[in-house]
């Protein structure tokens, strides 16, 4: 049987591979262009018009040099370029008296490329595209192509300028203390934000492309001499293996490169905060930045990254320790409070102290549903409210919260449909979910809550623990780019464990985390502990001031 399956799989794979390669051939128009391409300007422009169709945003402007020796054409996408730059620094110098004065006798088709590039046009970033396909691809990123009659190569000027969102505070990850700069949709801005934070020669921004039709830029950011090279190789390999039409958000990439895509737990960390991203790079991790989205991905990651916030590292460490323990507690509440409540109310009433049991029993009197149904109903309603609150415009959102809070909370209790204790449980759970810093981790908890409630309704606490053990088996088996997901709690060193649950003082963190297998473990010098001003020196300054004072007197 297994052999038959593997045979089938092999066959299928073969088929799939076959299809994709054919498709690739068909999908790649570049070859066709290359064959028909010719250095003659007229033919080239015809070819371009044929290939690109009647798109109004593509501007083709033909002109000739001042001495009438060279025919040229400029090609750009309107809206992606700075027009003034093109007018002032490409077209004008070529047509101006400047050419007449200095180059009129020399400028001809055969040396136009070098002269234009080196002497005439005045834009800092110029590239030579070897063929038309490449030039067109660059044009779609906002560059301007300068076609020269009779010249195979094409000059491509960097003139990118489009309407971009300003760098603002990241809305999904606000912080009291720390940088308020969040990433934007423009990749270049984002890399600049990183460079501004890490001014070191070894910060590498490695560029890749993904998405056949979207041609999305993907940048891997890392520090060359810290990072584990095996991890980097693996990330590169997985991203290069992506062969898809479109990458519109980093979420696409996340799904393509995850170790276990079926898992409900996110195996990549995601952030909008520039400072958090920089910190991750300095920890020896790799950043995957995708154009057109402010959300960058961090690999590898572990489960306990989700109880850490960047603010922990800015405020006093004491509060960070307390907050992390609190978040761990809150994580448990968010996952299993309703389930535990249902289990106790249905199966283990003896576990509650008698007065509490009596008050809950009194509150539940007249509620027509069993506790499981009640819990599932309330949790479902809460999810609906939440979803409505996210999607609706802000003005209507107010109405939703009034309807939700008043009608569903208050009226349903008065009508005797749900017990007040259940509303409290659901509300506490909801708030706990919001208290977690990582949104994508709380999604997993929100979903897992429901099966746990059902298990609790079936088998009581045994069912809850049964469910938790299933989650644990799953988590223990997960890996994120070779790092066990439960590390450093499982499979980690003691110092990593301490660093995860208790943020040490900065002068104590001499080493980076062991779990990543980095090249460079040393973070800083070790002798920066608490130092007092030498006693004698203090005496001296004191004496000095006194003498000084005395002298005055």
């Amino acid at each position, binding site marked *: 049987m297994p052999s038959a399956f593997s045979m089938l799989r092999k066959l299928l794979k073969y088929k799939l591979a076959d299809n994709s390669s054919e498709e690739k051939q068909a999908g790649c128009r570049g070859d066709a262009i290359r064959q028909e391409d010719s250095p003659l300007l007229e033919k080239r422009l015809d070819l371009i018009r044929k290939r690109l169709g009647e798109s109004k945003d593509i501007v083709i402007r033909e002109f000739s040099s001042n001495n009438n020796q060279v025919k040229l054409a400029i090609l750009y996408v309107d809206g992606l370029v700075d027009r003034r730059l093109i007018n002032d620094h490409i077209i004008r110098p070529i047509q101006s008296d400047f050419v007449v004065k200095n180059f009129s006798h020399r400028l001809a088709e055969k040396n136009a490329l070098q002269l234009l590039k080196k002497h005439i046009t005045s834009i800092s970033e110029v590239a030579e595209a070897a063929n038309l396909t490449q030039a067109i691809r660059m044009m779609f990123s906002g560059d301007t192509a300068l076609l020269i009659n009779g010249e195979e190569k094409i000059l491509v000027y960097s003139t990118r300028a489009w309407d971009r969102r300003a760098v603002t505070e990241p809305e999904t990850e606000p912080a009291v203390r720390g940088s308020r700069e969040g990433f934007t949709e423009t990749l270049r801005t984002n890399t600049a934000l990183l460079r501004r934070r890490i001014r070191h020669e070894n910060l590498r921004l490695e560029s890749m492309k993904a998405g056949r039709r979207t041609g999305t830029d993907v940048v891997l950011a890392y520090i060359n001499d810290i990072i584990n090279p095996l991890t980097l190789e693996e990330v590169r390999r997985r991203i290069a293996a992506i062969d898809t039409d479109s990458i519109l958000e980093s979420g696409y990439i996340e799904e393509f490169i995850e170790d276990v895509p079926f898992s409900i737990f996110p195996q990549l960390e995601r952030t909008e905060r520039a400072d958090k991203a920089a910190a991750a790079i300095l920890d020896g991790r790799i950043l995957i930045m995708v154009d057109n989205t402010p959300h960058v991905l961090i690999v590898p990651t572990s489960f306990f990254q989700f109880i850490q916030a960047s603010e922990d590292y800015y405020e006093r460490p004491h509060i960070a320790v307390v907050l992390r323990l609190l978040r761990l507690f809150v994580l448990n509440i968010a996952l299993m409070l309703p389930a535990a409540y249902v289990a106790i109310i249905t*199966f*283990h009433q*003896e*576990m*509650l*102290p008698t007065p509490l049991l009596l008050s809950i029993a009194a509150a539940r009197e007249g509620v027509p549903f069993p506790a499981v149904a009640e819990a599932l109903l309330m949790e479902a309603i809460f999810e609906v409210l939440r979803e409505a609150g996210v999607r609706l415009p802000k003005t209507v959102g107010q109405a939703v919260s009034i309807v939700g809070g008043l009608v569903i909370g208050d009226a349903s209790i008065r009508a005797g449909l749900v017990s007040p204790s259940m509303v409290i449980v659901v509300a506490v759970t909801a708030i706990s979910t919001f208290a977690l810093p990582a949104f994508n981790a709380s999604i997993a908890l929100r979903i897992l809550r429901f099966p746990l409630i059902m298990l609790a309704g079936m*088998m*009581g*606490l*045994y069912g809850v*623990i*049964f469910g938790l*053990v*299933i989650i*644990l*088996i799953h988590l*223990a*088996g997960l890996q994120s780019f070779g790092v*066990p997901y*439960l590390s450093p*709690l*499982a*499979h980690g060193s003691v110092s990593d464990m301490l660093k995860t649950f208790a943020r040490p003082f900065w002068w104590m963190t001499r080493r980076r985390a062991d779990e990543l297998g980095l090249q460079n473990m040393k973070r800083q010098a070790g002798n920066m502990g608490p130092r007092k001003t030498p006693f004698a020196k203090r005496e001296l300054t004191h004496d000095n001031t006194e003498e000084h004072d005395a002298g005055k007197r």
Partner: protein
Amino acid sequence: MLEKGRISPRQTGQLLFITTIATVIFIAPSLIASLAGHDAWLAALLGPMFTLITLLLITWLGRKHPGQTIFQYSETILGKWLGKAVALLYVWGFLHIGAMAVREFGDFMTTSFMSHTPISVFNFSMLLLCAWSVLVGLEVIARMNEFIIILIVSFLLLILFFSLPNWELDYLLPFFARGPLPVLQAALIPAAWHGNIIVLAVILPFMTRPTRAFLAGTAAIFASTTLLTIGVVGMTAIFGPELSSSFLFPLHLFAQTINIGQIITRFESVVMTTWMAGIFIKTSVFYYCAALGLAQVLNLKEVRPVVLPLGIILGTLSISLFQDVTMLGNFLKETRPYYTISLYFLGLPLLLFAVTLIREKIFGVCFGEQTNEA
């Protein structure tokens, strides 16, 4: 290789610790107390020391046959057929001990928590989890264990700590009143449970540093002995030897006595959580050993095909081996120590040890070098 994962010495020690402490602290105290009376703690302290002999034998054999599990080197030592017979005996042993653990848990659940639910629900659902963890492999079990060990140890210490106000140390007197014999007899009970470190004979070749096996085993034995002794002292100090010997699951009642300021009370659920987590790891380890053993005896390429049949056998055994709790208790007290120690924990390892020595010293066979391909 059937198992691709590797576990560190620390993880090995933790696995050995959990496989012993998970059941011994829940069941053994009452059995020990019924035999040794006031001196139960002495028996709990002495018993596990016997196990050091087993540990020495296993690690010695493991060093002689690097890269091989007990199922493999029994064949190397005793020849094909006799070796396979010994290996199968061990497979049965792991199944039997695993089934007992599952049964203990099922009985605990049905007698103390959910008396209307049939025991098969607990046994089979537990085995379902264990089967999954066996499929995902030793490395994942070890990782889960690192998580669970924190839970178990902290909960046990919490229970013991909160019960401190109720302790009456007078119950521990008179000391040594009945002489050494009952103490030694009772010491066999914890020894029988600590003999569970025989699983080291299976997981030793999967350690990252097999030379640390002895250290890991010793640490596990000492840690669990300490915890067991504290538990036995606490139980004797609260119930007295007579009362604590009359319950099969004294820790459960022990937790019920906790009452601090009317708030910290009703700790039974904590006991249940702890025990379930512990039994899960313990059964997974034994189940894993049995499955790996059977796969190696049958020369299979992977463990997968034997997991389901073994699980069904385990579940059936756990239900049909004993008629009720009393029979289970009697078996654990009167038969199990002699059966497991004489056969699995001491008898067969001694046999393998002796034959290895004889073949080496008298016949000049050199073990250790032939196993290069393993």
